[in-house]
């Protein structure tokens, strides 16, 4: 089993606030891992640090894409990180509202294609072909994520559950080896959550993508994850299989007062 993401001793300060405190975490190829923890624990900040949106105060982030060499990605810009194969979704949905659903996914293809201004103006054969490939590829992803009936809708007009799915579709269009999902089930009803469960499993099994997700819905976390990391106050307080975590007294203490429906 190959480790594809290794995070060592990661810390992030905002002024006086330490949002991440010497965090170690790794993800192995083919697994679905989950990060749980109370609000404000630093989970989103962790994603922001490893995807290059924030520059961490201390620590190392290393990736080993399948079939490629291990590489340090500290300080890389977000677009470089995505190009290297880590794509993410956002907790507070950040779609391109005034673009259609298909176009949102097509944006994800940007880093895997190459035609430029001149190509676009002259519209040569290779540009037309590339464009067609992008459209087909994106449409297939929409089919896979179950929102292909909405292709030409503006993203802003989508129902909430479909927007969450579109976030996933858009990230998948970049062909990541590791998909980072930030609270993908937030705001979904039980039926939508069940469908999401299937979708995530299918992505892992059929698209060879490993998944690291932040999630509050314990039922979803327990059913999906191979491993769980628990965070509190910027620190990792526990890690292990779902059954380890359920029985871990430290975790139960951290969650005291928070309601878990597991």
């Amino acid at each position, binding site marked *: 089993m190959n480790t594809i993401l290794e995070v060592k001793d990661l810390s992030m300060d905002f002024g006086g606030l330490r949002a991440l405190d010497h965090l170690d975490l790794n993800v192995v190829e083919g697994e679905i891992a989950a990060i749980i923890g109370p609000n404000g624990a630093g989970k989103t900040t962790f994603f922001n640090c490893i995807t290059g949106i924030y520059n961490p105060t201390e620590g190392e982030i290393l990736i080993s894409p399948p079939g490629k060499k291990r590489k340090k990605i500290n300080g890389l810009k977000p677009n470089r990180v995505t190009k290297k194969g880590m794509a993410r979704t956002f907790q507070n949905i950040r779609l391109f509202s005034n673009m259609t659903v298909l176009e949102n996914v*097509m944006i994800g293809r940007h880093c895997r294609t190459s035609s430029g201004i001149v190509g*676009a103006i002259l519209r040569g054969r290779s540009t037309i072909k590339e464009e067609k490939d992008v459209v087909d590829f994106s449409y297939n992803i929409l089919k896979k994520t179950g929102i292909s009936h909405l292709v030409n809708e503006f993203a802003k007009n989508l129902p909430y559950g479909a927007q969450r799915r579109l976030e996933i579709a858009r990230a998948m269009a970049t062909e990541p080896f590791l998909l980072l999902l930030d609270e993908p089930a937030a705001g979904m009803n039980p039926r939508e959550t069940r469908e999401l469960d299937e979708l995530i499993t299918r992505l892992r099994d059929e698209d060879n993508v490993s998944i690291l997700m932040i999630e509050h819905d314990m039922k979803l976390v327990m059913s999906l994850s191979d491993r769980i990391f628990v965070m509190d106050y910027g620190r990792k307080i526990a890690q292990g299989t779902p059954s380890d975590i359920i029985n871990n007294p430290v975790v139960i203490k951290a969650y005291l007062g928070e309601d878990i429906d597991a």
Partner: protein
Amino acid sequence: MIKAQEIKKSFLVSLWFMFLTFPIMVIRVNPIEKFVEWRWKNMLVVGIGSFLLSFVWRYMLKKKEAGEKRAETGESGKTFLIQRILEERRFYIPLVTGLTIIAVAFPFIFSMYQTSIMTTALMYIVLGLGLNIVVGLAGLLDLGYVAFYAVGAYSYALLNYHFGLGFWSVLPIGAVLGFIFGVLLGFPVLRLQGDYLAIVTLGFGEIIRLVLENWNEFSFGPSGIANIDRPGFFGIQFSLQTASIYLYFLMIGLVIFTIIVVNRLQNSRIGRAWIALREDETACQAMGIDKTRTKLRAFALGATWAGMVGVIFAAKTTFINPASFTFLESAMILSIVVLGGMGSILGVIIGALILILLPEYLRAFSDYRMLLFGAIMVIMMVFRPQGIIANIRRTYKFNE
């Protein structure tokens, strides 16, 4: 029925505006001759005008809020008339044919003066479409757009004056210089976010104008450069009349060329990246798009077009000086884009025609031109930020 409450509100608004405009609108002083003029009539006009307008204002605000609510609940499924016309061949083929006939016949039906005004309007269409790439598509508020226009105009004027270069050889040079300046200015400033970018581009625009005004040895200062050659045709120089028709068709050609280019771009890989950048910078970057490079491309391409039109401007007026390249010029082009609809080609064309032709033909308007531009920017932003014609995205059909 208008309720008494509403009338009272409007009455108060009216009182407030009479108070507000009292010193500026009613009193006019002549400090030299120690003479004060009282214009009480203006107060009456302001009072009545603001009384009526406040009804309209509140009505439109209400309508807009209702529209927003509808959009939030996802009920806004109506397609616009324009969109339908554009999609149905049986409408748009006669429309395009009609427009072509009018465009071709125009200079032969109307006077030279009219043709010249129309040529100016066409120039603003191209400038608007160029700025539209930067502001409308990529969402970069460039307030110094006129600087690149000046680069084009001065490159033709100076190359013509010093080396006798003709219009056609300078046209590509102007475009390239516009591009180069776009890259040079864009590179440092495009890291800045929204409003800072606006101010820096404004600053750059003013610096370029001030340099042109003060660096006499280079640009001949405020007196400018006169006797610039009109465009020729393989060495043939035309009479004034023919030259103006020639320029008109040249602009028609450039407008068509620009429309094709912008249309192709906005549905291309790069065009989509611009729009995504406008919609959400962080998400755009997280999807693997190089922010700086994408911005730079939009900025430089917009500048290229401004450079090109600058050359034509110098050739048309045969005289240029820094006064043609003030911030107000940038603001005017911006209001064309804002009025028409950011990102919409048809919108920008309509916006340019309205804003350039209206003040020319309705003389009464011409004094109020800039006042009108300012008001339009505010009103459009408050009530219809998407412009007259909202940007329409391409739809795709898939058959299973």
